[in-house]
């Protein structure tokens, strides 16, 4: 009996030591630099969402599919009504920046072309650093005015 208790005690002691060593390894392990905004839920970096007051469904994606840091790129903003009808003739203004770095966008992107089917080409989009970027769109169309914010994480 006594010897069984010895084993249990020794086992507990070694387990504690093991836990301590693992904790030390964990604490001293190099922390991967987490991009700012890492903790955000996936839905918040969605490329498609309803506008703030629910007037439109907006989607925003790079025209060539990939984001290239430091390069001027065109993105596509697609605007539809909730019923799926393309929104035509919208006036779009864009602002934004990096909320965590207290600076705005390095360029002033704007809608350069209407491509039909509710798709607007947004020229002059440029992300110069990794981290969380925000683009605010103010949209005015026949149905009314609304806003939407897209988060882009590099």
């Amino acid at each position, binding site marked *: 009996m006594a010897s069984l208790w010895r084993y249990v005690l020794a086992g507990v002691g070694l387990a504690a030591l093991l836990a301590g060593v693992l904790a030390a390894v964990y604490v*001293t392990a190099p922390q*991967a630099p987490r991009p700012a905004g890492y903790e955000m839920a996936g839905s918040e970096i969605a490329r498609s969402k309803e506008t703030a007051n629910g007037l439109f469904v907006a989607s925003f994606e790079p025209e060539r599919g990939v984001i290239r840091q430091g390069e001027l790129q065109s993105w596509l903003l697609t605007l539809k009504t909730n019923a799926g009808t393309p929104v035509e003739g919208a006036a779009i203004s864009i602002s934004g920046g990096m909320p965590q770095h207290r600076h705005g966008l390095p360029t002033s992107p704007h809608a350069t072309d209407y491509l039909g089917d509710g798709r607007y080409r947004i020229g002059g989009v440029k992300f110069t650093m990794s981290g969380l970027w925000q683009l605010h769109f103010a949209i005015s169309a026949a149905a009314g005015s609304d806003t939407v914010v897209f988060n882009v994480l590099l």
Partner: protein
Amino acid sequence: MCCSERCSKMNRFSRLFALLAMAVLAGCGKPEFSDAEKKTIASLALSALPPLKADTTNRFADVPAAAALGATLFFDAGMSGDGKVSCSTCHKIDRQFQDDLPRAVGVGRTNRRTMPLAGVAHDAWFFWDGRRDSLWAQALAPLENPLEQAGNRAAYAHYIKARFGERYERIFGPLPDLSNVPANASPLGGDAEKAAWNAMSGAQAEDVNRVFANIGKAIAAFERSIAPPQTRFDRFAAALDTGIQAPQGDDALSPEEILGLKLFIGKANCVTCHNGPRFTDGGFHNTGVPSVANLPPDRGRIDAVRQVEADPFNCFGAFRDGDAGACGELRFMVKAGPELVRAYKTPSLRGAATRAPYMHAGQFSSLEEVVAHYSKAPASVEGLSEIQPLQLSDRERAALVTFLKTLAE
């Protein structure tokens, strides 16, 4: 019975011991860099620098004869009002094309630090505040600045014709008839030069501007050849990229340099702006760099916006080659906003350790002072600084400086 009991006891102990040993080994053999850190390090290596893009606004950008003429002009003190100053007076070839002075001295004393030229052709904006939008348009500004080369475009056109006429014509085609062009004339000069310029016909002004623009295009063609050299950091990054956890020998970095590198891409946030293989995002930022006593107010980017818009040699101007599709930076330029106040271009950090002093007016005489500034993050004299204070120990600040030196060796 006894033996089997002892054996099972040993067995249990050895299993626990093995577990412990594995845990300890996992600690000792832990990778020096995480995968995310390795990715960032690879993005900073010189090997990640893309080939220089064609400059369609300057169709002579990659013409060897234009680069050769540009090199001649770059080092020619005849390209100045007093015959004593050339581009190379401040952009010294044996000093990373800068002059080690807090503020450049040409014909007069300027208010800004000379910028080095390695990799300059990758930039979208030129000067500390980006008041020019192409390398060739940039090259023209010092030629007429009274504090730099202090010449005027009519005089330069005459000088090119007299001195380099044949070489010029082989590259750019026939020189215009300058016989009725005044010896000295420019829209930016003194009163006499302005009056002479205004008295010229539109065609004459266009002719002179064309020769002047071509001077810039030749100098730009030369400057495109000035590339940043490989450094110790790049050798380290290349070795790390091959999968070696701790590069050895010549490729190795010291523990202090590695600490500095980890801080640079981690806690110290340097890589936020000093990113990519040139260690710059090419953007403009207010980082609370102090002003210099007795100099006129310097508001950085906010004042440069009007200047680049007004420059007749900008991308929208008549002297651009190619189509306006190349003018995206100017077209989508941010023209207003509080963040432009006292915003200056992020300089490349390659070679920075051996070219003090630092900042747009040479405010800091050592890297230690620079790191101390970014650690403390004082408020800006005007506008809002983007940087926030860092909790860096003395040892960490020293490690950052040690790491920066690997970019200059």
